[in-house]
């Protein structure tokens, strides 16, 4: 596209599906095959032609490249992708309930039992012809709706205009040096494409920045090491604190890494230092939230200050709060974390709010979890309990205390499993005669902590009970 045509489109509010040049590589597949811009455009054209004529598509693809093709085909057809990193039947049913005409798209292996939802198979076939022009998409078009666990138990839905997604990719490309001339970096990502961080950093970035992404499985350390070995340098690992810790513990040698990027949970500085030393690389962190996407970054070992992307504005709001403005997103968003906003687009995180728990890159509200618990048949009162080391101990999990004289712990645990994402399931359900509530009905945390310790002791020493 010529400069003139690009600026004409931009002034009309249109942004190209991809800004990559002809012949550039966007993806590397598990087979070793590389996907050029032309191959990608052909796959999108062929897929878009076959999509059902509906408004919304639930993208279930686990293969990162197939996810991208489905997303792009849905986008150019003027439909909206629905994304949920929570794959429990209850969450998907609730999401689909908000969009009753939605269909699901994915491989046969991605098919999930969703009654009444049509499954559109994704077929990629080699087509030997030249693709048409790069599609132009209105910046204001809603490209995706990303679901997260809401505070009431129902999913919270976050609409993402195409312009906001493109602006974020371009800001990240600037920040991490993925723009301008030079060798394209090879990204190996370990975060699901349906998660906002995985979506932005491992799926959308190759459309607008000089990177290629790896499409195959990257769950176990073995997979990550093989994927990195197969990737041409410079290599960038896009991952989470948990997987950094697991990969270090696995103790396998890695090929040279240009950088490691971490998000979804605070990365302890000791772990960042250990990873930088072991892999002779820089460990960078992204801060973001599903509502706003990625908004800032830092190199963990250099200090606790975050630097906002150039497309982001921050201002203090309320007690230890921050309102965030992001290019192409309507209005400001109040961050869920406690934040101290500093001058010059930097900020410091002061910790999570008491109601918020973060596990496995997901966020839940204790109030929301408590509402689910208390709605279980036979539960008279109940509360989840977050241990003090929840943010620092990767093995720490929630517990639940319930007043339910006629239900067993196992029955309550089973009822929760259908409604609560696995990371937030209580490791232990403890029945109590009454919850420790003070004069105004508020639960006394110190007493819960004592009950929690007692329950653990009794489990280890049954003779005490």
């Amino acid at each position, binding site marked *: 596209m010529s400069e003139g045509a690009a600026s004409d489109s931009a002034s009309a509010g249109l942004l190209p599906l991809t800004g990559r040049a002809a012949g550039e590589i966007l993806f590397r597949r598990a087979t070793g095959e590389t996907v050029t811009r032309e191959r990608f455009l052909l796959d999108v054209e062929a897929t878009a032609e076959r999509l059902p004529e509906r408004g919304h598509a639930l993208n279930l693809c686990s293969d990162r490249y197939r996810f991208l093709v489905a997303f792009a085909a849905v986008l150019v057809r003027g439909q909206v992708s629905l994304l949920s990193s929570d794959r429990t039947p209850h969450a998907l049913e609730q999401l689909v309930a908000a969009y009753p005409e939605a269909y699901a798209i994915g491989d046969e292996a991605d098919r999930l039992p969703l009654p009444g939802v049509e499954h559109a198979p994704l077929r990629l076939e080699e087509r030997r012809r030249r693709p048409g022009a790069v599609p132009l998409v209105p910046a204001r078009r809603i490209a995706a709706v990303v679901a997260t666990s809401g505070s009431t138990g129902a999913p919270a839905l976050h609409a993402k205009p195409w312009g906001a997604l493109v602006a974020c990719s371009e800001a990240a490309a600037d920040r991490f040096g993925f723009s301008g001339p030079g060798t394209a970096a090879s990204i190996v990502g370990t975060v699901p494409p349906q998660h906002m961080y995985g979506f932005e950093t491992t799926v959308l970035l190759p459309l607008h920045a000089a990177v290629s992404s790896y499409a195959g499985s990257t*769950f*176990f350390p073995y*997979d990550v090491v093989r994927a990195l070995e197969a990737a041409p340098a410079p290599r960038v690992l896009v991952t989470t604190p*948990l997987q950094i810790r*697991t990969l270090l*513990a*696995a103790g396998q040698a890695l090929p040279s890494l240009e950088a490691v990027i971490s998000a979804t949970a605070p990365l302890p500085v000791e772990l960042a230092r250990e990873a930088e030393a072991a892999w002779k690389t820089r460990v960078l962190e992204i801060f973001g939230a599903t509502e706003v996407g990625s908004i800032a970054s830092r190199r963990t070992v250099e200090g606790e200050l975050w630097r906002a992307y150039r497309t982001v504005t921050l201002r203090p709001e309320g007690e230890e709060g921050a309102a965030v403005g992001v290019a192409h997103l309507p209005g400001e968003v109040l961050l869920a974390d406690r934040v101290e906003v500093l001058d010059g687009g930097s900020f410091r995180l002061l910790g999570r709010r008491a109601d918020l728990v973060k596990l496995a890159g997901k966020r839940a509200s204790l109030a929301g979890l408590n509402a689910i618990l208390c709605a279980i048949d036979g539960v008279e009162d109940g509360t989840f309990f977050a241990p003090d080391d929840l943010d620092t101990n990767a093995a720490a999990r929630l517990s639940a205390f319930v007043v339910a004289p006629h239900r067993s712990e196992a029955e309550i645990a*089973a009822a929760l499993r259908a409604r609560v994402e*696995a990371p937030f399931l209580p490791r232990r359900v403890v029945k109590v005669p009454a919850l420790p509530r003070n004069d105004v009905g508020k639960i006394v945390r110190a007493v819960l902590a004592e009950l929690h310790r007692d329950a653990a002791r009794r489990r280890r020493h049954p003779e005490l009970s």
Partner: protein
Amino acid sequence: MGSSSPIELEVASLLIETLHLEMAADEIDPTAPLFGDGLGLDSIDALEIALAISRRYGFELKSDDEQNHRIFASLRSLAGHVAKHRARPDAKV
């Protein structure tokens, strides 16, 4: 609930130790699902299990193994996979 073989009890102990589960090895039903309805483990736990298995038994779990969902289906299938693949069959456990 079926009774567990020695290797199943051994792998059950490894799970309990790794995941800080509050139960005894013979309390894990060898045929119950580890994820979802059974023990309710999650993907974080799967990573921890993979790491513990590679340390104890000297072999790696990998995603491109098409048997994966079957391997993690139950304690019995996981123990069977360990018995078949462990690099140090005589290793002290």
